[in-house]
């Protein structure tokens, strides 16, 4: 289909009626996931934005779902936070109920059925990754409820930047160090080339033996040390005189309750 200009006529019509055209909103994030020799690795940047403002310079975008299942979240921060928390809770109960380790497909199904029900209004774009008895699994989930099972994937406003790195360098069964470096480089591509992404690189490495979370794995944007001193030495401003403008007399006065029984009291149960 190529480019889609179908909205142009609609927008022109709306503008002629005095309705302002919609502003584009970005999901302001770079999140990635890939499968490597021993499992999966998730990566994320740490910038949270409110329009053009950076609301949080070091937020956590890799969410816990189960000890062996973690989830990168892009989109509306509250939605990703709550939907992953909700599914994590459901999964824990389910896992105890069936007496088995949680599976990534279960998390994926719970998430997609919830998101589909809300027809995309719950703005959560997630990369779910983990290692369960069926092996390493990596899935991406979109807000409308569609899922893709892939060996490597990226989501968020910086996803195109990150995907360029992945498409160039990903191979099947990469060793751990090389895979971690590839994830970090993909996130950095988003951090430096996407305005919606920034600050640090967070990583989560999941294998059948457990998960290692690297909060602040790389910090390529640390604030430099201040180079000058801007404190004025005592005596810089000349004191010309002293004048008392207002004097307060502070007293401690006990409060006496006058009249009224139970009816006047604020706290009836106290």
């Amino acid at each position, binding site marked *: 289909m190529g480019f889609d200009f*179908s909205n142009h006529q609609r927008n022109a019509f709306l503008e002629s009626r005095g309705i302002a055209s919609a502003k584009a909103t970005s999901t302001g994030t770079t999140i990635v996931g890939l499968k490597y020799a021993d499992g999966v690795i998730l990566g994320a940047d740490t910038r949270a934005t409110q329009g053009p403002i950076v609301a949080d310079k070091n937020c956590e975008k890799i969410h816990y779902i189960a000890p062996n299942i973690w989830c990168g979240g892009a989109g509306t921060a509250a939605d990703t936070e709550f939907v992953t928390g909700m599914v994590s809770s459901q999964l824990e109960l389910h896992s105890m109920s069936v007496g088995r380790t949680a599976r990534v497909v279960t998390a994926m199904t719970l998430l997609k059925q919830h998101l589909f029900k809300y027809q995309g209004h719950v703005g959560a774009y997630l990369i779910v990754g983990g290692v369960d008895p069926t092996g390493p699994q990596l899935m991406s989930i*979109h807000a*409308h*409820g569609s899922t*893709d099972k892939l060996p490597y994937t990226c989501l968020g406003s910086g996803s195109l930047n990150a995907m360029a790195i992945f498409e160039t360098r990903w191979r099947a069964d990469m060793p751990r160090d090389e895979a971690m470096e590839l994830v970090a480089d993909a996130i950095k591509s988003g951090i430096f080339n996407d305005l919606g992404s920034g600050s640090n690189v967070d990583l989560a490495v999941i294998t059948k033996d457990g998960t290692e979370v690297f909060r602040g794995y790389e910090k390529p944007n640390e604030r430099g040390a201040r180079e000058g001193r801007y404190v004025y030495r005592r005596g810089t401003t000349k004191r010309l005189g002293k004048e008392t403008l207002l004097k307060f007399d502070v007293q401690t006065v006990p409060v006496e309750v006058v009249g009224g029984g139970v009816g006047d009291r604020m706290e009836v149960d106290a």
Partner: protein
Amino acid sequence: MDHSLGIDWKALKKGEVSMGTTIAAVKYDGGVLLAADSRTTTGAYIANRVTDKLTQIYDNIWCCRSGSAADTQAVADILHYYLQMYEAQNGAPPTVRVAANLAAEMCYSNKDNLSAGLIVAGWDAKSGGEVYSIPLGGSIHKQDIAIGGSGSTYIYGYVDTNFRKDMTREEAIDFLKHAIALAMERDGSSGGVIRMAAIDGKSIDRYFFADADIPAAWNAPASAT
């Protein structure tokens, strides 16, 4: 009804993932063959370039999905659930006709909220291989060959000219491979690799064609063999 804008308001919602797609299914001598491209798009970005649009909804009943990825995945999952319930409740596996009608029922009843074009195809002991097309409105059409998705518009001529009844499996594979390749060449929303599934009641065989194995358009067989 407002005709002035001439815009299809039923199209995908903003930001929704679409399977622009070329899908096809053909009945051959002994079974059915399903085929699809592998491109899933969000606007102009290809969200998944190796999608599997051929979904198993029962042992010998599969479907090709086109339209909204979320809608078709949801319909296929619910269809799978209904068919499992059918076997439990009726003591016999569902026929392809039952599966296709259930899918059509879902698509028709929810036509205002769905953007799903399905081709249900499979093999059962009662009727052998069957292909049913279920386009956007939820109608059902039993056919010997069905094509769907945005890319299908480019291959109606090729399909009408080259389709023959009772081809062998190899002939059917060659036919659909060329058809899908032609559509992928011309439709921006179709591309990637070609996936196929052959169902003949004895086994289900998956096929995968990429890069050099996808025929270049100028290599397509001459029409009217």
